[in-house]
């Protein structure tokens, strides 16, 4: 299974034209020029399967579920099989010492060349004791594996930004991959879970050009995270017309109006859901009637409530009433002071007598 990718694909009954077509669409999706699709197909067809080591830390396996299942009958899924996935606890048959050996063997054989995929955040509290694999802490394993990696893919919001484990009050001291590893190229693919095609797109880009795609300042591939959900949303015209669903089952909701008032975080969330969609292009959250949670943004869990519109207070205002009372108190105090001043002034006038004037 170490031959060029195209041979492996042929054995699976995938023709060259199917592959070319796939690459053309992938290039289009990644906003690359059409010629890149062909270059991509050629490079990828000839590419050897890269060794991929997938490390799970503080996570829920949702990212793995997303990647393996959503596109399983299509090419993305198969390409995913085509990489040499040398360590993935959930998918691998080996367990215990065998699994650890497989990882060490892969790291040794492909030193400096393998791609490291990480899902889940890394706890730093209590020397990392909150999450251990084979008796070693996550932070320890990550540092070791990052040493020989060509590049690191932080899969999902937890690996990218800390995600739910990092949510207030962050009991385990969770941090993201980029908080620990600073000397390797890291691409963040946030989302809870992330969109599968983004993962395959990044892999395809890496196989083709030997580098990671262009990233934004948060380390995300610009091709997929360049625009907000709101700007690409098919319900956007309703926002502009001021037509909003007020509850999840009112007339507006049935008419498919904008979900802004129901707490949609689309305006501040950069992701490709609105265009790529989910489950093989079937639908996506807003299309099924629920606002965007903003799951691909850092600290989305603590962004003031999923069902609160962006323009309303994140927390209830607590000091308003107290401030009114304090204001009234201050006002009354000042008015007493003013009245006293006036009285003093008046009295000073009254003591002005004829005698005073004649002095």
């Amino acid at each position: 299974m170490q031959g060029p990718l195209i041979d492996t694909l042929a054995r699976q009954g995938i023709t060259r034209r199917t592959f070319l077509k796939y690459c053309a669409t992938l290039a289009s999706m990644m906003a690359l020029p059409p010629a890149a699709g062909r270059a991509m197909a050629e490079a990828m067809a000839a590419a050897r399967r890269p060794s991929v080591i997938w490390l799970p830390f503080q996570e829920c396996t949702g990212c793995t579920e997303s990647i393996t299942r959503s596109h399983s009958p299509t090419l993305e899924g198969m390409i995913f099989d085509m990489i040499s996935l040398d360590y993935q606890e959930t998918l691998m048959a080996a367990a215990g010492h065998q699994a650890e050996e497989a990882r060490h063997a892969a790291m040794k054989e492909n030193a400096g060349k393998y791609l490291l995929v990480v899902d889940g955040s890394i706890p730093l509290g209590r020397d990392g004791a909150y999450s251990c694999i084979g008796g070693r802490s996550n932070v320890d394993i990550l540092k070791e594996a990052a040493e020989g990696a060509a590049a690191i893919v932080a899969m999902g919001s937890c690996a990218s930004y800390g995600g739910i484990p990092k949510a207030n009050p962050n009991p385990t001291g969770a941090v993201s991959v980029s908080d620990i590893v600073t000397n390797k190229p890291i691409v963040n693919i946030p989302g809870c879970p992330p969109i599968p095609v983004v993962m395959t797109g990044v892999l395809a880009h890496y196989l083709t050009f030997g580098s990671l795609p262009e990233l934004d300042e948060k380390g995300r591939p610009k091709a997929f995270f360049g625009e907000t959900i709101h700007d690409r949303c098919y319900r956007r015209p309703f926002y502009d017309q001021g037509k909003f669903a007020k509850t999840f089952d009112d007339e507006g909701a049935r008419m498919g109006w904008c979900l802004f008032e129901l707490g949609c975080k689309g305006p501040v969330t950069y992701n490709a859901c609105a265009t790529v969609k989910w489950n093989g292009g079937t639908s996506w959250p807003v299309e099924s009637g629920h606002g965007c949670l903003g799951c691909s943004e850092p600290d989305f869990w603590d962004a003031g409530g999923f069902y609160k519109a962006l323009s309303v207070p994140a927390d209830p205002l607590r000091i308003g009433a107290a401030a009114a009372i304090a204001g009234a108190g201050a006002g009354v105090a000042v008015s007493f002071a003013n009245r006293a001043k006036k009285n003093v002034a008046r009295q000073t006038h009254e003591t002005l007598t004829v005698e005073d004037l004649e002095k």
Partner: protein
Amino acid sequence: MSLDAIPIHVIDPPSAEPGLSGNAPPLLRELSELAKRLLASGETSAIDLSALPLTPADLAWLQDTLGAGEISVSLQANGESTLNETACPGIWWVTHRNEQGAVTSQFIEVAFVPELVKAHPEDVKNGQEYLELLISDL
């Protein structure tokens, strides 16, 4: 519970489809340049239609204007793809669909023969080997 029990209103798609944006006509000029380049140097090229701000009306206008040529190729590979020559020979309208029939990408290709139609030498070699096998079985 049947679907009818759920009070869903089916709304006609917005009748006022976004009209022409004016982005389509300049593409004709670009295609003309690309065709000139094909004649001069044999260099093929393509325009990715999903990468451009074109409305459905723009695409319809473009398809209408370019017209239909003599050849239409359909390719069954992970969903249907159609590669149709336009009324301008050498300009091909390429549409890729997935297994569900949804358009995944759309290109206008400027080439004597679209890239996908050509058989790859490797594949020809495989075919020839298969022929040998058939002959030896005779």
